């Protein structure tokens, strides 16, 4: 009788542990670091600003349809800036707006937010950059502006940019990375990195090959890619790879063929 009760209690404990402690995997920002929460969709204002913000969101999530002229691969801005540019540790727009203009080592210049976006068009989207005063960039900047309302300006917020993953104890090894890739990534991104289609539309974006980001992109830097993967991949299972696995798989992905870096203009 007693045994039965104890067993019952244990069973419940197990079950509730299972149900309630399934970590949502956003773990890293602990110790009082509150992550900024951007305004909700419903609070997009009316009027012309609202229209511009919505336009920006459309370009961001469906780049080929709304800015196809500038896009040279099968990605959208959201492929890397997850949750429509809102996800912490996936370079959210709310984390970017307040820290530009800023100096970047990459081109030894002080860059505005618009110029930073041009960079993503040329390298991450393997396309051409729309002019800083083009309707496309204006809409994207308006979208970032709206999303960062209420966020402190001039400081790097927790969750902004990509996670800076500590360098691994063993050099990243693309051969171990291949094993990780096959076990954890190929289901969605395909064994050959080609991504997957659903009735003619890209469902899972390609991670290498002619339709992915080029060698000038931020993700061609193994460290940046490893930080992104650690926090966000496999999708919905962020923070489930070990740091070493994240480095290895990033090294593997970056060792595969992809478009060359476009010549400097």
């Amino acid at each position, binding site marked *: 009788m007693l045994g039965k009760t104890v067993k019952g209690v244990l069973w419940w404990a197990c079950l509730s542990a299972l149900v309630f402690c399934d970590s949502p995997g956003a773990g890293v920002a602990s110790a009082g670091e509150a992550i900024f929460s951007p305004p909700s969709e419903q609070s997009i204002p009316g009027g012309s600003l609202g229209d511009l913000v919505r336009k920006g969101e459309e370009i961001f999530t469906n780049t080929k349809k709304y800015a196809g002229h500038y896009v040279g691969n099968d990605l959208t801005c959201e492929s890397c800036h997850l*949750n429509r540019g809102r996800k912490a540790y996936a370079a959210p727009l709310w984390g970017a707006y307040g820290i530009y203009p800023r100096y970047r080592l990459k081109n030894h210049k002080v860059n505005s937010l618009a110029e930073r976006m041009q960079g993503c068009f040329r390298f991450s989207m393997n396309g051409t950059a729309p002019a800083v005063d083009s309707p496309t960039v204006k809409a994207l900047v308006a979208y970032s502006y709206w999303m960062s309302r209420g966020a402190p300006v001039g400081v790097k917020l927790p969750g902004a940019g990509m996670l*800076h993953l500590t360098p691994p104890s063993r050099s990243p090894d693309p051969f171990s990375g291949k094993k990780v890739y096959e076990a954890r990534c190929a289901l969605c991104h395909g064994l050959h990195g080609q991504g997957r289609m*659903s009735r003619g539309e890209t469902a*899972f974006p390609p991670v290498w090959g002619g339709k992915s980001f080029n060698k000038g992109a931020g993700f*061609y830097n193994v460290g940046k890619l490893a930080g992104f993967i650690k926090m966000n991949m*496999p*999708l919905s299972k962020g923070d489930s790879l070990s740091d070493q696995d994240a480095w290895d798989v990033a090294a593997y992905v970056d060792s*595969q*063929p992809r478009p060359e870096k476009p010549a400097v203009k």
Partner: protein
Amino acid sequence: MINIHQVIKRVPEFFQGNARTIFPISFNAKVHPDIFSTQERSMRKKLVWFSVFLFFLGDFSPAVSAHAEDLFSRGRQIAKAGNGMPGNTACMECHRLKGGGMPSIGAPRISGQTIQYIEREITEVQKGARYGPVMAGVVQNLSPRDILAVATYYSKVRSPKLRDTETLSPKRVRLGKQIAHQGLWKKNIPACVVCHGPNGYGVPPLFPYIAGQNRTYLMRQLIAYAFLERKDDPQGLMRGIARRLSPQERKSVAEYFSSLDPPYTGSR
């Protein structure tokens, strides 16, 4: 800041026309510089043999499609009357001959799911790894070939959407739609349509379509992933998501997807 990228230098490409960037030997002692060339060479050899094989296959291709036709009619036979072994029930008793399912008892619509997915689910039910209290009783005696045959059959037949038994709440459908298209990121749930394809039409081969599926079935699966014995989903992706949804949210997404039109409704 250590930038690993600066450590990794490109070395001359080993093959003309192969743009692969590889890592210098010093970067990882285990990497033998020749490993790519050996692999590549054996790959090329295989390719040559494969094209020879294809060349001969060309002559026999009618036989190949006859084989597929065979599977289809064998599958239709099983769907209609079972495979003749004791304990096997005709699939059409519950899934109908055209695979439209039976909303009243929560038997799923299966017409147009991929061969790989149908095959996988039945095999996993046989192994006991996939929740299937009803299915477990009726598919034990199917051989792998039988399974391939019914999978081929049901992936090819088409059925219109069958009327669901319950009326839906517009409020829940609205919430369901929002979760389906935008996710619930505060609980780390991506939009359902990211994995189940635009409109919930599926991403072949292993992400099933869920649009137009009946509500009772969808609801049961979400509960089975969250608490019961559906434990064979790759990497636990669906289990994690179903667990993090609240009962109200599970109901809402089930109602939303059941309100949509399914893919593959044409005639065959």
